[in-house]
């Protein structure tokens, strides 16, 4: 059965989740089979769509819930949590 995992992450880089970090996130997520959704409050978007990720307007300090579902969900989630935690390697 498909695995479903989730984690809360906090945006730590100064500029927040702007275009380039959103693209790194989508690139990372897209390397896995798992479906990825990201939630900020009631806003829920596809973690594999840059355009949808921009709708989060996630500034520095924003908490997001990342959910992955699929056979490689845990590995996918781990990489995404690391990416956000490193501030998308920006600073």
């Amino acid at each position, binding site marked *: 059965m498909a695995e479903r995992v989730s984690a809360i992450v906090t945006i730590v880089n100064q500029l927040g989740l702007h*275009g*380039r970090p959103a693209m790194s996130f989508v690139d990372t997520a897209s390397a896995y089979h798992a479906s990825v959704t990201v939630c900020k409050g009631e806003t829920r978007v596809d973690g594999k769509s840059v355009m949808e990720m*921009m*709708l989060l*307007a996630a500034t520095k300090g924003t908490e997001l819930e990342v959910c992955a579902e699929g056979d490689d969900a845990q590995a996918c989630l781990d990489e995404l949590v690391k990416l956000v935690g490193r501030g998308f390697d920006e600073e």
Partner: protein
Amino acid sequence: MKLSEIVVERAVVPELQATDRDGVIEELVGSLVEAGAASETDRPVLIERLLAREQKSSTGFGRGVAVPHAKHASVSGISVAIGVSRGGVDFASLDKQPVYSVFLLLSPEDQPDAHLTAMEAIFRHLSKDTFRRALRQTTNVDEIKTLLVEVDAQNLGG
């Protein structure tokens, strides 16, 4: 943040003359300069920054839209120019499709949060098929302004 409040009316170009990416960026920056939203002195550096950003990774995020953007200390407030291309422009988009709607955003250097909120306002509309289609059907500045006010009003409802 409402889109109609950050779009500079005199920088709305219903029919872009330029047919390539660099030309579109120059044309829209020119319209912002003429509208007084950016200074003539800064024109070259703004164009340079916008193009450098495109070279890092395209802001053609797919579905026929591109959102070139730059921050600069001389920009006094969030300003958006809109350009509609009738023939489509190669923006090296993620989905490799031509771009018909360009939203060019200039932000002050020291307001990253406002910059993200402006991007959110732009994408909230651009991610909707109906908005993209309606925008491509407009023929003049007034129609575009009316469209922006309408979609802003719809968003207040939900």
